[in-house]
């Protein structure tokens, strides 16, 4: 699986009206996506006076300052929300990967009765909206006394990400031919050794990319986190509930803060993007 850029060597083509139209469209769409992000970035990294003023400008035409960001991080509950979000996302990544990896391996390596049923039920879980799942889980957590704990949010996020992770990891394993494992065993390695020394290094980048995806999904998730917590809010749940009572500096800085992981991680996983979404959308 490769990105389109590398499938065919770039051919030198004359600059026809068609090519020009392509570039104009590409740049227009890119601007439509980048400009709003740049504006929010400008608002997050300038002085609070600038954020309040009208008309507003964008960097570098307005002073650069960490004032807004420092103000945002100083607001009550933001740092603990940040910590909660990080803990939830990390627990989700670990749980989701640990549970999915064996299942993904089983789907990609074994033909067993019930394999298709298992794949289908995993897909069915994906089809259930978060909204539908959150209320029953909240009621269950209240019953067992897990309500308003970040563990409950992590468990919920694991349910949400598990199907995607299983299918992505299965496709990652499927991309490593079984013959390689067999070859290792022919040369005297045990099944575990050939898995550990041949398969694992090959699948590691793919699994890391899927973990990153899981992290971002958990970091972004707001509905379940709002339903399942009251005091121990994650960052998105906190922001959502304070949105109407807060000023623009808090809102813009918070919004930008929420975006940062996806901006960074999308860069690292862009190679795997098609592999993942190709699988997921099947």
């Amino acid at each position, binding site marked *: 699986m490769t*990105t389109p850029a590398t499938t065919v060597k770039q051919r030198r083509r004359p600059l026809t009206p068609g090519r020009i139209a392509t570039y104009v469209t590409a740049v227009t769409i890119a601007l439509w996506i980048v400009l709003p992000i740049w504006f929010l970035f400008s608002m997050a990294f300038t002085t609070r006076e600038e954020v309040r003023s009208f008309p507003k400008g964008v960097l570098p035409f307005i002073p650069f300052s960490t004032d807004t960001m420092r103000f945002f991080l100083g607001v009550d509950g933001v740092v603990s929300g940040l910590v909660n979000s990080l803990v939830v996302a990390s627990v989700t990544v670990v749980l989701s990967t640990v549970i999915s990896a064996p299942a993904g391996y089983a789907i990609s*390596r074994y033909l067993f009765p019930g394999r298709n049923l298992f794949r289908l039920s995993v897909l069915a879980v994906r089809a*259930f*909206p978060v909204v539908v799942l959150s209320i029953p889980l909240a009621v269950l957590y209240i019953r067992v006394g897990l309500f308003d704990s970040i563990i409950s949010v992590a468990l919920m996020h694991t349910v949400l990400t598990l199907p995607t992770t299983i299918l992505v990891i299965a496709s990652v394993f499927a991309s490593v031919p079984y013959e390689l494992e067999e070859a290792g065993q022919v040369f005297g390695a045990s099944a575990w050794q050939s898995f550990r020394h041949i398969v694992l290094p090959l699948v590691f980048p793919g699994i890391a990319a899927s973990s990153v995806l899981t992290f971002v999904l958990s970091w972004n998730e707001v509905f379940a986190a709002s339903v399942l917590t009251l005091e121990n809010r994650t960052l998105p749940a906190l922001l959502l509930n304070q949105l109407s009572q807060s000023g623009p500096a808090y809102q813009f800085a918070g919004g930008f803060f929420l975006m940062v992981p996806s*901006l960074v991680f999308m860069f690292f996983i*862009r190679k795997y993007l098609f592999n993942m979404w190709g699988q997921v959308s099947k």
Partner: protein
Amino acid sequence: MEELEPTTKRRRNLTPYLLISPALLFLAAFFAYPMFQGLILAVYDDEAVLPLLAEPSLSGERVGEVPPGTRVTIFAQQGNQLDGEITADLLTEQWFFVTGDDPDGAAVEGWAPETRVRVRDEAADGTPLGGTIRPKLGENADPLTPLRGEPSERADVVAELDERAPVAIGEIAVLEVWFDVEAVTDDGTVTAGWAPSRFVRAFESGEEGVVDRGTDGQFTSRFIEKMLDDRFFGPAWRTTLLLMVIIIPLQFALAIIMALVIHARPKGTSGFLYVFSLPMGMSDLAVGILFFSIFTSSGLLNSVLDAFGLIGDTPPTYLGADTRNWIIAAIVLAELWRATSIVMVIVVSGLQAIPDETLEAAELFGASYWQRVRYIILPLLKPSLQVALILRTILAFQVFAVVIALGGGEIVTVLANETYRQYFELRDNNVASAYAVFILLLSLASSIFYLRAVRTENEGAAS
């Protein structure tokens, strides 16, 4: 696309089942079980009726049942062995185990209700240690207070104490008050029996009351009716569908254009691809705030308009209470911005599966670019588009944070927001579940509709 067929066929063994068991167990415990329990909430009322019992005891025979809200007449009340914990709202009476001297001077002991003893000596923490028997009011009242063998009006009398007799208080028993009630239900049937007072709210007079809540569950359509009657229900589903109908066609058009641009491989394709797919990983709340920063009256849009001198001294408001259409437009743009990337990635995957030779052949035969898109690319993209359509429709029923960020959730409301409101603001799990079931049914129905639509089309082509 990687095909998921296993690369090997090993002999049948238990290994794959062991490998998938953690995932299965986890999904059973945290998906299937709560899902089942939760969906039941929409049609099952845990507190549908209060059973009335033949005697003031939980083991009493059930003589009838009354739903919450029924007016009842209270005939008698009586303390009874407490079942469960003491809570603040519980109507209780206390009984003291007292020792004292009877009128004949003999030492006696037994249980007396708190109302018959005036406490005169307390420990530091307020525990009563001793007191005197209260005198009885009224001319002909028997001056003697009976002591009973057990803390209950119905227990045998073991001794009697004179009024003002000093007593030492030992053990204390807390009893729950039970009411003997009679209820006339809507259809005129009369039910009478005993019920614990915690389920019946007595009025000031003590002779009348109302059933507060029930203890026994029953299936009911009450919550679904409540949802249908909810004043936000109509606006919510209409807006959800409206947003879907506007967003999805625009989104697919934009996604196909983006995919075609990527497919044309301009210089820096991977850079464009990164930028085009940027919104995919973004939190919907962050995107909501992003578009709020654009459309708020001192935001980017008005700043740009101001720079061109297009607005006067007071910048117009877009996200106010009387600019519903502007809010909808802002939501549409935000959703287009946010969720088009996913569709694009699916479409690009589909485009990659179309052999270059096919397109080159068409080009050789003189097909224009538009003709190639219309007659070759789009028909071949159909399976990818179908997948994307199902995915997007399911996601469209869940728009939530963007709507809250842009419209506050009152002027423009959607189904997910109403689920949240019912759960969070109104604390009504049952109606919230009814909303969840409604969303689930809509998602399922639309998925089945798309799948069937494509299947009938294929059958039509085959015949």
